[in-house]
């Protein structure tokens, strides 16, 4: 497509700059014979996809090679999709405006379950058959990665390859394989067979699923030489691995519109509900020197006025204070704001607060996750009420008047006492504010409680647990509202309808492929957006496929059940999850990895140690 043809489309849609590219930092290459064309797709709108750090890293990583051209593709909004369909324009890549269908690799990063129908929509919009078996040509190959690739079974029929773990490690091997395959003219079967030999590359079509009479899985049987177990790939040294020196700087405002540097991967805490905390283990920290270097590179090259230091638990980063000392003078001189997401409530010091304050004062957000100590012990959150109050005291004394507290409901073993505990804790924060003589004068306090519905995820100690039913969750929401008495406390919560679907897809098996396809055929796409989500389409799709969402969402699994993801090894062992599940039921906590190794198994991947400072 030429720019002129694109003009015809763009005059008819909202936010046309989503589809024009031409941003600072976008990579445009001269097409050479033999060059591998790689479409990196994010199955959501531009503003969401452009905020994703992994995509920025892998985009730069792929484009550092002369024989690969990686371009970006995002889901068109509904108005754009309509115009494209009317005018017969297939899905195109932003940099070259060429149809995605002509590419060699079409990669999707799956950040949440609710994007599955959008993956199908984008394959369809590209003009390709959505089922992998119906795509007979060797190229393009559809490959997926990201956290949801850890249980890819509900979309296994639509993809050719699944990349497990960190893309910096595996990408080059996949590129080399594809380049060789094209040169030597391999057929698709041969490519898939050989790809399965790349460590970390899972090829779903080379595995047959056998089921028991009760519909649980009997075995995943590999054939054509595919390995019994596929182990994820990890970067061993974050100080040596590729990190981009620049980002694509969008014209329109995106969700996280800033430069971002990772402090570490993995998490030392072991909260039992948290998939990310286990999925990204082992812990590997970046040295403060590397973080500062990466940060300065990015700010200088992008012109961003905000820098995010990201990780799963930023205040746990061992080098945080020296890093901030190093960075703050530099950023301040350049009018750059620092953002520190994911601060923990138990090690948020006055010194740290003052450092953040030097740049900008906004609201503070913390996540106690549960309302009572008993339940916080079950989920291994390892924070106490005193921690919460102490932190709020520090914040109020420092001039803050707004605190946001994140909670979950529907957690295993939860009772109404735990729900009431949420309201009680918020009330204690309000009371604390008014009891402090040094509170900000003439100001009122605002405590916002945000409550999410708990969804049990694979690769967590709660993977065995049934989800609370929709009716139970609605009852709990109602009860929580009845417990809140102060006008200083506001409550917001998520709808439970999508939570059930999320739970079914998260722990689903290959039989859900028919449901995902059915929902897509009935018009489902962009399911993560409330205004696009069509619950009826999903309900009908479940019914027509003869598959019940309850089987996946509401059923308790036994420890010896074969999980749909048991043949995929993300480091942490199933026996560790069983051990942790038993401890949860007893209400016993497990300390941070920094206190001592708990033997989760992830350290196998990096030769026996977690790399901490």
């Amino acid at each position, binding site marked *: 497509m030429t*720019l002129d043809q694109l*003009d*015809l489309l*763009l*005059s008819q849609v909202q936010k*046309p*700059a989503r589809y*024009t*590219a*031409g*941003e*600072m930092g*976008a990579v445009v290459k001269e097409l050479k014979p033999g060059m591998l064309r790689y479409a990196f797709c994010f199955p959501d709108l531009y503003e969401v996809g452009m905020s994703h750090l992994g995509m920025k890293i892998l985009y730069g990583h792929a484009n550092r090679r002369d024989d690969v051209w990686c371009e970006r593709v995002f889901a068109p909004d509904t108005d754009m999709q309509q115009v494209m369909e009317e005018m017969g324009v297939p899905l195109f890549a932003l940099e070259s405006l060429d149809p995605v269908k002509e590419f060699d690799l079409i990669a999707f990063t799956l950040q949440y379950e609710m994007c599955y129908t959008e993956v199908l929509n984008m394959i369809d919009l590209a003009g390709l058959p959505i089922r992998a078996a119906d795509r007979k040509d060797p190229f393009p190959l559809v490959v997926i990665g990201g956290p949801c690739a850890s249980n890819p079974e509900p979309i296994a029929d639509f993809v050719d390859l699944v990349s497990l773990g960190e893309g910096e490690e595996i990408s080059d091997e996949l590129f080399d394989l594809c380049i060789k395959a094209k040169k030597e003219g391999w057929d698709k079967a041969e490519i898939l067979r050989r790809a399965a030999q790349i460590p970390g590359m899972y090829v779903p079509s080379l595995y047959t699923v056998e089921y028991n009479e009760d519909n649980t899985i009997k075995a995943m049987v590999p054939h054509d030489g595919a390995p019994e177990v596929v182990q994820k790939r990890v970067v061993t040294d974050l100080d040596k691995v590729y990190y981009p020196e620049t980002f694509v*700087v969008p*014209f*329109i*405002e995106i969700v996280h519109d800033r430069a971002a540097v990772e402090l570490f991967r993995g998490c030392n805490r072991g909260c039992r509900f948290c998939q990310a905390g286990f999925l990204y283990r082992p812990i590997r920290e970046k040295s403060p020197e590397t973080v500062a270097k990466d940060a300065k590179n990015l700010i*200088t*090259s*992008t*012109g*961003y*006025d905000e820098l995010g230091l990201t990780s799963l638990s930023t205040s746990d980063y061992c080098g945080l204070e020296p890093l901030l000392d190093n960075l703050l003078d530099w950023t301040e001189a*350049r*009018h750059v704001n620092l953002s520190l997401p994911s601060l923990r409530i138990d090690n948020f010091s006055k010194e740290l607060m003052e450092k953040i304050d030097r740049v*900008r004062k906004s609201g503070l957000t913390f996540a106690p996750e549960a309302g009572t100590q008993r339940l916080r012990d079950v989920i291994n959150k390892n924070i106490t009420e005193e921690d919460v109050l102490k932190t709020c005291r520090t914040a109020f004394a420092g001039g803050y008047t707004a605190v946001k507290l994140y909670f979950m409901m529907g957690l295993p073993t939860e009772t109404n006492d735990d729900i009431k505990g949420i309201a009680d804790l918020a009330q204690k924060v309000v009371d604390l504010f008014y009891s402090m003589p040094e509170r900000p004068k003439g100001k009122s306090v605002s405590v916002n409680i945000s409550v999410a519905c708990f969804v049990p995820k694979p690769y967590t100690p709660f993977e065995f647990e049934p989800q609370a039913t929709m009716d139970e969750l609605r009852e709990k929401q109602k009860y929580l509202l009845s417990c809140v008495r102060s006008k200083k406390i506001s409550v917001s919560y998520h709808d439970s309808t999508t939570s059930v679907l999320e739970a079914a897809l998260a722990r689903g098996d290959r039989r859900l492929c028919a449901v995902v396809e059915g929902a897509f055929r009935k018009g489902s796409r962009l399911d993560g957006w409330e205004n696009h989500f069509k619950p009826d389409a999903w309900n009908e799709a479940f019914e027509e496929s003869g598959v019940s969402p309850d089987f996946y969402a509401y059923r308790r699994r036994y420890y010896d059940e074969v999980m749909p993801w048991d043949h995929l090894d993300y480091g942490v062992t199933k026996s560790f999850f069983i051990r942790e599940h038993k401890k949860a039921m007893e209400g016993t906590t497990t300390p941070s990895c920094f206190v001592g190794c708990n033997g989760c198994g992830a350290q196998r991947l990096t030769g026996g140690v977690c790399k901490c400072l």
Partner: protein
Amino acid sequence: MSVNMVRIFFTKSGRAIYTSHLDLTRAMSRALCRSGLPVWYTEGFHPHLYMTFALPLSLGTTGLCEAMEVKMLEDVPYEEIVTRLNDAMPEGLRAISAAAPVMQPKEIMWADYRLYIRCRTAEGREALDKFFALPEIPTEKRSKKGIKTVDIKHMMQLLSIEDIENGLLVNLRCRAGVEINLNPTLALDALAQTTGFRADQVKIERYAVLTEELKDFK
């Protein structure tokens, strides 16, 4: 500390025309940061890079003589400002010149536009002739305060109509500035409403910004 006001003229074309005014502000501010030019920041609680635009341009319109002002903390040769900014700007944005401001933005009275109208020429000419012969053209104009009807007849002057490949090229002078401003797309809407004529595609290009005496804004 003395600060020098600098007016920078630039073009906005190609993929960049789809950048809204707000997005352009952000893009320019980032380009200025990348350029390392010694620009002045506002003081106060949230310091930000000081920057103003003489006459914002509508989304989708090409601009050949756009103007913005910044303040410099040091004397930088004007040619160097242009070069350094161009090295830092995204595709479609190009600085042409920089100089101390001569005029005030409030002196802007007119802007000249080229409208490339894709249509059957005979049909287009007939509609345009009829349109410009109307004694008055009451048109609904949407503003922040709501919708009101204004007569746009005296807010524009037809400079010329030429035949081009696949259509017509219309040169149109529109009132411009803070007080009264006519967006040519509003004139096209009025054209459609009064004559029923709809073009297959229209591309608009602003090529001159003028004062009351029709002098180029400097």
